[in-house]
């Protein structure tokens, strides 16, 4: 009888959890992320799948955790009671599914191949409106200023990590989940889990981080600059005679330009603009637009979230590198907002038409949350000061900016 209980005990996950209580930390983390996603509504579409991925990956014996390959592409696992090491990139997909399980199959087929981040970018493009940016073209330059955090943290992180790891950590400052994942896959795939978690967590914390940096760097007088009044004083002479045609031509032209200058950014920018083109063409491509922005995007998000979460196993997550990533990611995020704000301040020194620094703070790619947060801050200081449309210009430009920055990092460090 005792033998039977012993066998039941061995069959369950209890024995392994008691042998290695670090699993409990991972469950606590998963529950915390689920709480933030469900109850606090922090990026629930991504945080919930990621959190659930973390949870199911950390049940010993479940076989749902993603096995990271080492520098030579080798994965080590038990097969028929023997520890084997195989080059995962030479294993056929059915063998990965059979030997390593479902989650590894999804990860190596869809994520490690680099397929899903550009697919998600296509969906993001289909949901993006470049109209506000075209109406306030000059403000798009702040999408460049707000990439400062990426390169500032690269500088610091280069002292503690390899250059590839530092580049992957720094890209969190772009405030763009798919871009962070895409870059990390190319540069330091073993850090994918913590970097994805940090990127999406900080994106969810935009309503906290932007007000904090704004409070530390901006004066009340600057935050009260009314953009509409500035427009009345110094009107924009740009005239739009056919916005529809303009919005169709724009994504095609931008893709061409970016592809020539930074070819490594084409996978992201090209798909972003393709999704946008489907939207702007209108009725003739409405079915494709619907697929890109709903069906494909949603399916991609589920697979991406679950398998990225599943990379966060005890071995991969509970180490000093992860703590460094969490701290570095926060710095990257903060410096990016700071960079955008400083660029506005510098420009205001030389121009008559003043710009609210909040427009610089939204040079991050967290669209449209960053713009909404900035608008709320502006309204707090002046209830008549609506800056949303102006912020959307730098915000959308930030998506292009961070994709270009990712392309540069991949090109130099990959």
């Amino acid at each position, binding site marked *: 009888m005792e033998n039977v209980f012993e066998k039941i005990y061995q069959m369950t996950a209890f024995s392994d959890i008691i042998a290695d209580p670090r699993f409990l930390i991972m469950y606590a983390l998963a529950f915390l992320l689920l709480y933030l996603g469900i109850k606090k509504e922090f990026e629930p579409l991504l945080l919930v799948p990621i959190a659930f991925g973390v949870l199911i990956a950390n049940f010993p014996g479940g076989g749902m955790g993603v096995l990271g390959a080492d520098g030579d592409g080798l994965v080590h696992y038990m097969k028929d009671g023997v520890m084997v090491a195989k080059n995962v990139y030479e294993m056929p997909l059915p063998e990965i599914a059979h030997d390593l399980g479902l989650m590894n199959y999804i990860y190596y087929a869809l994520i490690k191949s680099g397929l899903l981040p550009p697919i998600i970018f296509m969906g993001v493009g289909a949901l993006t409106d470049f109209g506000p*940016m*075209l109406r306030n*073209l*000059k403000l*798009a*330059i702040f*999408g*460049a200023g707000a*990439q*400062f955090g*990426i*390169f*500032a943290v*690269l*500088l610091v992180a*280069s*002292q503690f990590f390899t*250059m590839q790891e*530092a580049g992957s950590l720094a890209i969190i400052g772009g405030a763009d989940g798919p871009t962070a994942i895409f870059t990390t896959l190319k540069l330091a795939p073993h850090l994918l889990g913590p970097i994805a978690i940090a990127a999406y967590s900080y994106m969810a914390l935009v309503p906290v981080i932007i007000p904090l940096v704004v409070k530390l760097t901006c004066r009340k007088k600057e935050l009260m600059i009314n953009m509409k009044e500035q427009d009345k004083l110094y009107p924009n002479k*740009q*005239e*739009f*005679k*056919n916005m*529809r*045609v*303009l919005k169709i*031509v*724009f994504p095609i*032209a*931008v893709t061409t*330009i*970016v592809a020539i*200058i*930074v070819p490594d950014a084409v996978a992201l920018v090209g798909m972003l603009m393709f999704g946008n083109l489907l939207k702007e*063409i*209108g*009725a*003739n491509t409405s079915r494709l637009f619907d697929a890109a922005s709903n069906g494909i995007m949603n399916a991609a998000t589920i697979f991406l979230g679950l398998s990225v979460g599943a990379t966060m196993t005890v071995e991969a997550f509970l180490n000093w590198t992860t703590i460094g990533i969490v701290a570095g990611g926060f710095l990257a995020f903060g410096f990016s907002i700071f960079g955008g704000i400083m660029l506005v301040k510098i420009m205001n020194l030389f121009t008559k038409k003043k710009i609210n620094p909040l427009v610089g703070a939204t040079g991050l790619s967290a669209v449209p949350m960053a713009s909404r947060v900035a608008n709320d801050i502006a309204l707090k200081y002046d209830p008549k000061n609506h800056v949303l449309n102006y912020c959307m210009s730098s915000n959308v*430009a930030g998506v*292009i*900016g961070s994709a*270009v*920055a990712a392309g*540069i*990092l991949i090109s*130099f*460090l990959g």
Partner: protein
Amino acid sequence: MGNFIYALELMGIGMGTVFVVLILVIELGKALIAIVNKIAPEEEKPQPKAATPAAVMPNVAQAIAQAVNVITGGKGKVDKIEKQ
């Protein structure tokens, strides 16, 4: 130290390239606006005729015409609006 110098170089190259690309995007946008304004200005659309002014309010007729315009990508026209 070698990494720091390299990271510093990357910072210069990276920020420089991001600025160049976005300046190009801005200038490209301006050029496209000028070209589109010149060669493809939007045609003046004739006001849709309401079946009977008493039956459908002009602002309602205009809203319906706009909706048809968006859904059909500018190909459809509203000739008649009837209440059932």
